Protein backbone atom coordinates (compact mmCIF):
# COMPACT_ATOMS: atom_id res chain seq x y z
CA UNK A 1 0.00 0.00 0.00
CA UNK A 2 1.13 3.54 -0.73
CA UNK A 3 -0.01 6.03 1.87
CA UNK A 4 -0.47 9.56 0.52
CA UNK A 5 -0.78 12.32 3.09
CA UNK A 6 -3.61 14.82 2.75
CA UNK A 7 -3.78 18.44 3.78
CA UNK A 8 -6.71 18.95 6.13
CA UNK A 9 -8.16 22.34 6.93
CA UNK A 10 -10.79 23.97 9.11
CA UNK A 11 -13.05 26.87 8.16
CA UNK A 12 -14.11 25.63 5.83
CA UNK A 13 -13.42 22.04 6.82
CA UNK A 14 -12.05 20.05 3.92
CA UNK A 15 -9.16 17.86 2.78
CA UNK A 16 -6.97 18.21 -0.29
CA UNK A 17 -4.62 15.97 -2.22
CA UNK A 18 -1.82 16.70 -4.71
CA UNK A 19 -2.33 15.34 -8.20
CA UNK A 20 0.35 15.10 -10.90
CA UNK A 21 -1.09 15.07 -14.40
CA UNK A 22 0.79 14.19 -17.59
CA UNK A 23 1.15 17.40 -19.54
CA UNK A 24 0.16 17.87 -23.18
CA UNK A 25 3.76 18.53 -24.18
CA UNK A 26 5.25 16.07 -21.73
CA UNK A 27 6.27 16.78 -18.20
CA UNK A 28 4.02 16.89 -15.17
CA UNK A 29 1.40 19.45 -14.19
CA UNK A 30 0.82 19.66 -10.46
CA UNK A 31 -2.51 20.68 -9.01
CA UNK A 32 -4.20 20.42 -5.65
CA UNK A 33 -7.73 18.98 -5.52
CA UNK A 34 -10.41 19.03 -2.86
CA UNK A 35 -11.46 15.55 -1.77
CA UNK A 36 -15.19 15.30 -2.46
CA UNK A 37 -16.73 12.03 -1.33
CA UNK A 38 -20.05 13.10 -2.85
CA UNK A 39 -18.75 13.55 -6.37
CA UNK A 40 -18.75 10.86 -9.00
CA UNK A 41 -15.48 11.96 -10.54
CA UNK A 42 -12.69 14.49 -10.84
CA UNK A 43 -13.44 17.94 -12.20
CA UNK A 44 -11.02 20.61 -13.43
CA UNK A 45 -11.45 24.02 -15.04
CA UNK A 46 -11.74 23.58 -18.81
CA UNK A 47 -8.53 25.55 -19.41
CA UNK A 48 -6.58 22.52 -18.20
CA UNK A 49 -7.86 20.44 -21.11
CA UNK A 50 -5.37 22.43 -23.19
CA UNK A 51 -2.54 21.85 -20.74
CA UNK A 52 -2.92 18.12 -20.13
CA UNK A 53 -2.51 15.07 -22.31
CA UNK A 54 -6.08 13.84 -22.75
CA UNK A 55 -7.68 11.09 -24.80
CA UNK A 56 -11.21 10.10 -25.77
CA UNK A 57 -12.85 13.46 -25.14
CA UNK A 58 -16.65 13.26 -24.88
CA UNK A 59 -19.36 15.75 -24.12
CA UNK A 60 -21.24 15.06 -20.91
CA UNK A 61 -23.85 16.77 -18.77
CA UNK A 62 -23.06 17.31 -15.12
CA UNK A 63 -25.28 18.34 -12.26
CA UNK A 64 -24.67 19.56 -8.77
CA UNK A 65 -26.80 16.95 -7.06
CA UNK A 66 -29.84 18.27 -5.28
CA UNK A 67 -29.62 21.75 -6.78
CA UNK A 68 -32.38 22.37 -9.37
CA UNK A 69 -31.25 24.06 -12.54
CA UNK A 70 -27.57 23.65 -11.67
CA UNK A 71 -26.64 21.48 -14.63
CA UNK A 72 -23.77 22.29 -16.94
CA UNK A 73 -21.92 20.83 -19.89
CA UNK A 74 -18.42 19.43 -19.61
CA UNK A 75 -15.86 17.48 -21.60
CA UNK A 76 -15.01 14.10 -20.12
CA UNK A 77 -11.62 12.70 -21.09
CA UNK A 78 -9.06 10.17 -19.93
CA UNK A 79 -5.88 11.44 -18.31
CA UNK A 80 -2.91 9.83 -16.61
CA UNK A 81 -2.20 10.90 -13.06
CA UNK A 82 -0.07 10.10 -10.07
CA UNK A 83 -1.02 11.03 -6.53
CA UNK A 84 1.68 12.42 -4.28
CA UNK A 85 2.38 14.17 -1.02
CA UNK A 86 5.02 16.58 0.15
CA UNK A 87 7.00 13.86 1.94
CA UNK A 88 7.72 12.15 -1.36
CA UNK A 89 5.11 9.39 -1.34
CA UNK A 90 3.97 8.76 -4.89
CA UNK A 91 1.61 6.28 -6.51
CA UNK A 92 2.20 4.49 -9.78
CA UNK A 93 0.63 6.23 -12.80
CA UNK A 94 -2.97 5.33 -13.46
CA UNK A 95 -5.69 6.54 -15.76
CA UNK A 96 -8.84 8.32 -14.62
CA UNK A 97 -11.70 10.14 -16.30
CA UNK A 98 -11.71 13.88 -15.74
CA UNK A 99 -14.45 16.41 -16.38
CA UNK A 100 -13.25 19.70 -17.82
CA UNK A 101 -15.92 22.31 -17.16
CA UNK A 102 -16.53 26.04 -17.07
CA UNK A 103 -15.71 26.18 -13.40
CA UNK A 104 -12.87 27.19 -11.13
CA UNK A 105 -13.36 24.18 -8.88
CA UNK A 106 -10.70 21.47 -8.70
CA UNK A 107 -12.26 18.48 -6.98
CA UNK A 108 -11.71 14.75 -6.96
CA UNK A 109 -14.23 12.10 -5.97
CA UNK A 110 -15.06 8.52 -6.86
CA UNK A 111 -15.10 7.26 -10.43
CA UNK A 112 -11.35 6.99 -10.73
CA UNK A 113 -9.54 8.10 -7.62
CA UNK A 114 -11.33 7.65 -4.31
CA UNK A 115 -12.78 4.33 -5.41
CA UNK A 116 -9.20 2.99 -5.64
CA UNK A 117 -8.18 4.02 -2.13
CA UNK A 118 -8.93 3.82 1.55
CA UNK A 119 -9.59 7.27 2.98
CA UNK A 120 -8.57 8.17 6.51
CA UNK A 121 -9.59 11.53 7.85
CA UNK A 122 -8.94 12.84 11.37
CA UNK A 123 -10.53 16.26 11.61
CA UNK A 124 -9.75 16.98 15.28
CA UNK A 125 -6.04 16.49 14.52
CA UNK A 126 -6.20 17.86 10.97
CA UNK A 127 -4.52 14.84 9.44
CA UNK A 128 -5.52 12.36 6.81
CA UNK A 129 -4.24 10.05 4.14
CA UNK A 130 -5.26 7.93 1.21
CA UNK A 131 -4.02 4.33 1.06
CA UNK A 132 -3.60 3.09 -2.50
CA UNK A 133 -2.89 -0.56 -3.31
CA UNK A 134 0.43 -1.18 -5.02
CA UNK A 135 -1.30 -2.80 -8.00
CA UNK A 136 -3.31 0.30 -8.72
Amino acid at each position, binding site marked *: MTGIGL*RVYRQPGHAEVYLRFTGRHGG*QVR*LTAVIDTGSHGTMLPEAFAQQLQIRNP*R*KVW*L*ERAGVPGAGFEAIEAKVMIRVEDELGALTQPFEISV*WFAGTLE*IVTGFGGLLNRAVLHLDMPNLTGYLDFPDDI
Partner: protein
Amino acid sequence: MATLRLTQPENEPAPPNTFGDFHWIRENEATLLEKYGEGFILVYNKAVIGFGPTYQAAVEAAERNLPPGPGEITPVIDTLYHRHPFTRIVSTTLSISLDDLRDER
Protein backbone atom coordinates in the same frame (compact mmCIF):
# COMPACT_ATOMS: atom_id res chain seq x y z
CA MET B 1 14.72 37.96 -17.83
CA ALA B 2 13.84 34.83 -15.91
CA THR B 3 11.58 32.29 -17.57
CA LEU B 4 8.35 30.78 -16.31
CA ARG B 5 8.14 27.01 -15.97
CA LEU B 6 4.71 25.52 -15.28
CA THR B 7 5.56 21.86 -15.80
CA GLN B 8 8.32 19.63 -14.48
CA PRO B 9 10.01 16.62 -16.04
CA GLU B 10 8.50 13.36 -14.89
CA ASN B 11 11.31 12.14 -12.68
CA GLU B 12 12.26 15.48 -11.23
CA PRO B 13 11.24 16.18 -7.61
CA ALA B 14 8.90 19.07 -6.97
CA PRO B 15 10.64 22.47 -6.94
CA PRO B 16 11.33 23.61 -3.36
CA ASN B 17 8.56 26.22 -3.40
CA THR B 18 5.77 23.94 -4.61
CA PHE B 19 4.04 22.51 -1.57
CA GLY B 20 4.62 25.54 0.62
CA ASP B 21 3.05 27.75 -2.03
CA PHE B 22 -0.06 25.58 -2.39
CA HIS B 23 -0.46 25.61 1.38
CA TRP B 24 0.10 29.38 1.51
CA ILE B 25 -2.71 29.95 -1.00
CA ARG B 26 -5.11 27.91 1.08
CA GLU B 27 -4.10 29.52 4.36
CA ASN B 28 -4.59 32.99 2.86
CA GLU B 29 -7.55 32.16 0.66
CA ALA B 30 -10.01 34.59 2.25
CA THR B 31 -7.57 37.50 1.98
CA LEU B 32 -6.61 36.63 -1.57
CA LEU B 33 -10.26 36.34 -2.61
CA GLU B 34 -11.02 39.73 -1.13
CA LYS B 35 -8.08 41.28 -2.95
CA TYR B 36 -8.27 39.54 -6.33
CA GLY B 37 -11.72 38.01 -6.64
CA GLU B 38 -12.33 34.69 -8.37
CA GLY B 39 -9.92 33.38 -10.99
CA PHE B 40 -6.59 31.68 -11.64
CA ILE B 41 -3.62 32.54 -9.45
CA LEU B 42 0.09 31.89 -9.82
CA VAL B 43 2.21 31.98 -6.67
CA TYR B 44 5.97 31.68 -6.29
CA ASN B 45 7.70 31.67 -2.91
CA LYS B 46 4.52 32.82 -1.17
CA ALA B 47 4.00 35.83 -3.40
CA VAL B 48 1.36 36.29 -6.08
CA ILE B 49 3.08 36.76 -9.43
CA GLY B 50 0.03 36.47 -11.68
CA PHE B 51 -3.72 36.56 -11.47
CA GLY B 52 -6.47 36.57 -14.08
CA PRO B 53 -10.05 35.55 -14.75
CA THR B 54 -8.71 32.92 -17.16
CA TYR B 55 -5.72 30.59 -17.11
CA GLN B 56 -4.17 32.42 -20.06
CA ALA B 57 -4.62 35.86 -18.50
CA ALA B 58 -3.02 34.69 -15.26
CA VAL B 59 -0.01 33.21 -17.05
CA GLU B 60 0.42 36.34 -19.18
CA ALA B 61 0.28 38.47 -16.05
CA ALA B 62 2.99 36.30 -14.47
CA GLU B 63 5.15 36.59 -17.58
CA ARG B 64 4.96 40.38 -17.33
CA ASN B 65 6.00 40.12 -13.69
CA LEU B 66 9.15 38.04 -14.08
CA PRO B 67 12.32 39.23 -12.37
CA PRO B 68 15.30 40.31 -14.45
CA GLY B 69 18.27 38.03 -14.85
CA PRO B 70 18.71 34.44 -15.90
CA GLY B 71 17.13 31.36 -14.43
CA GLU B 72 13.61 30.08 -14.23
CA ILE B 73 10.87 30.30 -11.68
CA THR B 74 8.44 27.51 -10.95
CA PRO B 75 5.19 28.93 -9.64
CA VAL B 76 2.21 26.86 -8.63
CA ILE B 77 -1.12 27.49 -10.29
CA ASP B 78 -4.38 27.27 -8.39
CA THR B 79 -7.85 28.76 -8.50
CA LEU B 80 -9.63 31.15 -6.18
CA TYR B 81 -13.39 30.87 -5.81
CA HIS B 82 -16.12 31.16 -3.22
CA ARG B 83 -16.75 27.59 -2.19
CA HIS B 84 -20.14 26.00 -2.53
CA PRO B 85 -21.44 24.59 0.76
CA PHE B 86 -21.37 21.19 -0.94
CA THR B 87 -20.08 19.98 -4.27
CA ARG B 88 -21.45 16.55 -5.19
CA ILE B 89 -20.91 16.64 -8.94
CA VAL B 90 -22.65 13.82 -10.78
CA SER B 91 -22.82 12.90 -14.42
CA THR B 92 -26.15 12.17 -16.05
CA THR B 93 -26.54 9.74 -18.92
CA LEU B 94 -25.76 11.98 -21.91
CA SER B 95 -22.34 11.16 -23.27
CA ILE B 96 -21.53 12.02 -26.89
CA SER B 97 -18.17 11.49 -28.48
CA LEU B 98 -16.80 14.70 -29.97
CA ASP B 99 -15.92 12.68 -33.07
CA ASP B 100 -19.61 11.72 -33.44
CA LEU B 101 -20.58 15.38 -33.15
CA ARG B 102 -18.14 16.31 -35.92
CA ASP B 103 -19.50 13.52 -38.16
CA GLU B 104 -23.07 14.76 -37.63
CA ARG B 105 -22.11 18.18 -38.91
